[in-house]
């Protein structure tokens, strides 16, 4: 987890707790998370968004797929009234997490806090779906003969 130390402002922090401690899931598994927000200071929160998304990394432009999205604007459910939250979803069949050479696919849980001033703060927590081993670039064409 990375922290942003920004002088002169509050330093929000979102601690995320997955129901699988190793953050490894299989397709169609139920994923449930609980989070705790802190360090919001005097900044007034106007909305909160939970999402479970996959995105691509690597050489190509980033693509994003949203599996689950929820926006909360009810003051009773926003800080400072509520500093903790939880949500969950049934994961889809695909795409699986993939550590390729020039294409990588990652899953993450995002909590985005919108402040009254117009700024927002996003906290991202990566987890794995599936058990695909990392890929390696093939140096030569023929690697192995499948049949004797």
């Amino acid at each position, binding site marked *: 987890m*990375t922290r942003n130390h920004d002088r002169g402002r509050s330093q929000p922090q979102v601690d995320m707790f997955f129901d699988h401690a190793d953050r490894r899931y299989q397709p169609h598994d139920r994923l449930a998370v609980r989070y705790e927000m802190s360090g919001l200071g005097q900044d007034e929160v106007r909305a909160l968004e939970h999402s479970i998304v996959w995105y691509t990394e690597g050489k190509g432009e980033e693509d*994003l797929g949203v599996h689950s*999205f929820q926006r909360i604007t009810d003051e009773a459910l926003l800080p400072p009234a509520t500093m903790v939250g939880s949500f969950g979803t049934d994961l889809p069949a695909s795409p699986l997490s993939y550590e390729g050479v020039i294409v990588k696919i990652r899953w993450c849980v995002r909590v985005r806090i919108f402040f009254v001033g117009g700024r927002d703060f996003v906290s991202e927590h990566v987890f794995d779906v599936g058990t695909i081993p990392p890929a390696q670039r093939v140096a030569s064409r023929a690697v192995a003969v499948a049949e004797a």
Partner: protein
Amino acid sequence: MRLPRFFEKKRGERRTGSQVWASAGEAAFYAALLVAGLVFGGLLVSGVAVPEWRLNHDFLPARGVVLAKGLQRRSVADSPGVVHTTWAPVVRLRFPVDGVTSTAWSRPSAAAVTPDRETALARLGGLPEVGEEIPCWYDPEAPDTVVLKRGYNWAMWLLTLLLPGALVAFGGSGLLRSVRAWGKSEERRAAAVGLPEKLAPLGQTPAETPGFPGVPACDDLVNSPGTILSYRLPIESPESWALLGFGLFALAWNAVLVVLAVGAGLDLMGGRIDWLLFGLLVPFAVVGIGGVVVFIRGLILATSVGPTQVEVSNHPLRPGRSYEVLVAQGGSGMLRSLELFLELEEQATFRQGTDTRTERAVVWSQLIKQWREVELSPAARFEAEATVRLPERAMHSFHSEHNVVSWRFVVRGVPDRWPAFCRVFPVVVFPAEAAARAGRPAVEEMAG
């Protein structure tokens, strides 16, 4: 007041602030295009289209007598010291307006205006003679405006509609997208794909299999039955595209060459020799002939080997399962070797400056079978079957707007007398875990 920041962290926990400027900048860009389109369109409509429309609808017909003929000179100062002069043949007419006789010089049509005085003089001879009575049309609001011809300039109307229309459409759709996305997170925008996203100029998200986000649809791969196994796979030959490219280049280049050569030939017949043109023709001809040679060589290579066909016993494929694959090779002659591979390729599309580039990397390759000294006969094609088993933890096919992970069978052959060839047959691999976890077939097997 805090100003938004331009640069922020991309991953992990971070504040974001650049979105405000990004949205504002994008909206301003599209708004500028929209305004430019509206202003440009307004100018064209009011300055060109409306006068022409009035000429054809409001001008009144009359019979006028030609009193005189002459050249109209119009001089415009383009820049200090540079004066641009145009000439047009006109006639002075006497015609009745509400019972009163009126005289005026005719207004020349745009086609009659020329920068060359001699040409204008020549055209003057084509106008009616003095004393002749001819039809004319005058503006009832300004009777000294009289024309000899009416009609529409359709090219001008197309220009009037096309250019500003494109600017308005592009700018308007972009502005609509920007406004709809204003203040929204990328997750919220992605979760609500609506009209603005559909209007996106670069929106090329491929069709995916229902229930399998990111997995491309395989409808196009299972609509051709095989001769022996269930499905005949479509070919995706990079050589064919290269050959098409060479063909189009040779065609376009030689078309230019012919135009230049005709011009040079006409000069030569007229007794003039343009050495610069002849000097240009030589390297142009060399490149043109080279293009034709490369194209014909590629065409011979593509057609000399004969068609390759790959069939598979089932589709889509799944990790951990085995499949029968048939390779059929037509043509004649001897192949020193014929190899069948199963490959996994990654493809990433990215922008570099103003260019869009695509990079590919083969990240897994398995030689399924190799045949040596294959004798091809026109009477009966070479056919051989092999069995392929996908790894238990193989990555599934994946396709998003800019990133692709694709599986394919690759047939590589080395003919005895020709260069080696490579033919690619894409397949779709589904995730293995999906069916097992769901306790049901994720997608019904399309054949057994």
